[in-house]
């Protein structure tokens, strides 16, 4: 995988949201949702982004897609810096980058038929002169996409409420595929689904990747789902990436104390293993991202914290080959 070209390059991405107390007042405080994130996604791989709610996973994906205007940093998609791109350039770039959202109930327009929802990206590109397609071509394409994601083409004229959650997620996936993108940003695409449906959708993601050579940025909070889909995994905590490594290394040998705790907290569906497991139970809750800390963000909950962690911020550095971690246990402060 390492010889493949870098498709997405995120550098120093920051997304701060102002907290306004009154309509005209100037923002004094910020939510530091994403506070300096760097990573690369290579063509054909799946980078899993995992973390608890409020850690900034979804904000990262949305800031990459320019649904939010990032506070700072650059996002390169195939050499083009999206943060500085013009409206027209950005539209053209979106052909290569599509999103699948978490809630299949909220992300489909209830007044459009399944066929129209899937055709919409093509129609938008046709209208803005970036693509040529006749009405018949669009129809064919929609039918072909529906069969690809496992929906019968006879459902084309049905409305979203006539579909189950899993089928709706298939419509969302077909829509994301409509423009033949290279990169798909998947924001918790299976967390709203039942177990038996979840495995169907995960398999669909894998099959589509094999067939079209897709690249995924796959966000989930479920560690076992991330393990199943990812080639590499990045763990986020409070707006920062704390560890990033090949999936098998990260699960076999987690380095950051937070990753260790996350892995030990996730239940395993086997009573024999559960009975023997030693859990690292973290104390307290994830703190609010409303202030920037001088030290490590994980300091308050870390079972292995040292004096230095309170004063200085660790940075993401290689501790082992292809295994980066942001923790003073592995490298001395500068």
């Amino acid at each position, binding site marked *: 995988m390492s010889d493949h070209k870098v498709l997405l390059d995120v550098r120093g991405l920051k997304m701060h949201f102002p907290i306004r107390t009154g309509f005209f007042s100037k923002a004094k405080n910020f939510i530091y949702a994403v506070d300096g994130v760097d990573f690369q996604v290579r063509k054909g791989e799946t980078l899993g982004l995992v973390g*608890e*709610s409020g850690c900034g996973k979804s904000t990262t994906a949305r800031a990459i897609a320019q649904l939010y205007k990032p506070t700072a940093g650059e996002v390169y998609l195939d050499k083009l810096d999206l943060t500085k791109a013009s409206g027209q350039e950005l539209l053209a770039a979106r052909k290569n980058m599509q999103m699948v959202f978490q809630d299949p109930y909220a992300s489909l327009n209830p007044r459009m038929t399944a066929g129209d929802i899937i055709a919409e990206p093509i129609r938008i590109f046709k209208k803005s002169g970036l693509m040529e397609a006749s009405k018949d071509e669009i129809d064919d394409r929609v039918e072909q996409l529906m069969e690809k994601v496992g929906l019968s083409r006879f459902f084309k004229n049905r409305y979203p409420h006539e579909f*189950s959650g*899993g*089928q709706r997620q298939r419509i969302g996936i077909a829509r994301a595929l409509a423009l033949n993108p290279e990169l798909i940003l998947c924001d918790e695409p299976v967390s709203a689904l*039942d*177990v*038996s*449906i*979840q*495995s*169907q959708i*995960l*398999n669909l993601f*894998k099959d589509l990747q094999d067939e079209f050579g897709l690249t995924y940025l796959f966000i989930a*909070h479920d*560690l*076992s*789902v991330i*393990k*199943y*889909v990812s080639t590499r995994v990045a763990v986020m905590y409070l707006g920062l990436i704390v560890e990033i490594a090949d*999936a*098998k290394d990260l*699960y076999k040998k987690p380095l950051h104390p937070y990753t260790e*705790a*996350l*892995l*030990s*907290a*996730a*239940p*395993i*569906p*086997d*009573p*024999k*293993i*559960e*009975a023997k*497991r030693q*859990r690292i*139970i*973290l*104390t307290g*809750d*994830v703190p609010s991202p409303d202030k920037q800390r001088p030290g490590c963000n994980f300091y308050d909950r870390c079972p292995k914290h040292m004096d230095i962690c309170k004063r200085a911020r660790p940075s993401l550095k290689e501790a082992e080959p292809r295994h980066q971690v942001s923790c003073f246990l592995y490298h001395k402060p500068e």
Partner: protein
Amino acid sequence: MSDEVILQVKDLKTYFTVDEGVVKAVDGVSFDLRRGETLGIVGESGSGKSVTNLSVINLIPTPPGKIAGGQVLFHGKDIFAMSSGEIREIRGNKISMIFQDPMTSLNPFLRISTQMVETIVLHQGLSSEEAKKKAIEMLKLAGIPAPEKRIDQYPHQFSGGMRQRVMIAMALSCNPEILIADEPTSALDVTIQAQILELMQELTHRLGTAVILITHSLGVVAGMCDTICVMYAGRIVERGRTEAIFETPRHPYTMGLIRSVPRLDQEAKGRLYSIPGQPPNVIDLPDCCPFYPRCEKAMDICKKKYPPVVSFDNDQSASCWLYTKEARNV
């Protein structure tokens, strides 16, 4: 866990009448709960897990809902035959509940103290000062720091995990014999889920409370429960001791469910197993096995009649034609 059965559910049927027909949300569910036992009810959305447990404490909204048949015996007394006064004595006192979303089950306008003291005064006949002392003690047990101060705060001043701790403290404040926990950790993050599950396990063991734990997560039942019931389309399709269910699942649905979860402790290889199709709509279900359209092992008879319950050694049982004489004769 002792052998004394404190709750018996016998052939419970709860139906809802809607415009499209009759929804048989729960259609003939039976199980026993022993003192101190932790029973897990697993199933996917719409399988009838929550309705079963709302029926147990007679909280089904009527209409549209209706208890169409069956009995729920608490210490041998039928809950459906009790007066509303008698049920109120039991509900929240002998049998208490925790729901999935702690924000919607706490009253946002009232301080935690008001809500907790009310329950304790009502059920235990303590004075309000004594009740407040007891409430503080329970909050402390539930791991809430500085309970003397926190008790006078409002629910929005607590985080999600802390609210669930308050709910647990509240539910256990009357020393109930049974705690019904309906997806208590599904809204919480993994690290907080681990905290809350550990807390529930520790407190209920200490107080000797029996627990009915409703969840869709196989991982959670594996770590928490003594026995498991697997529900599908309003019925229990398999039951048994937790180890037995995971080691030798008998019903094809249980087998499929266990195989379709990606595992943290195993290498990801190839495709995940997946059960084809969708769970059925429970409106006007035909009288056959509701799982047969998705079942790998479906036979002719599965389309015709609902399978009987087949018992195996070690207390396991499953509703499936595979293990009956009819199947062997085919």
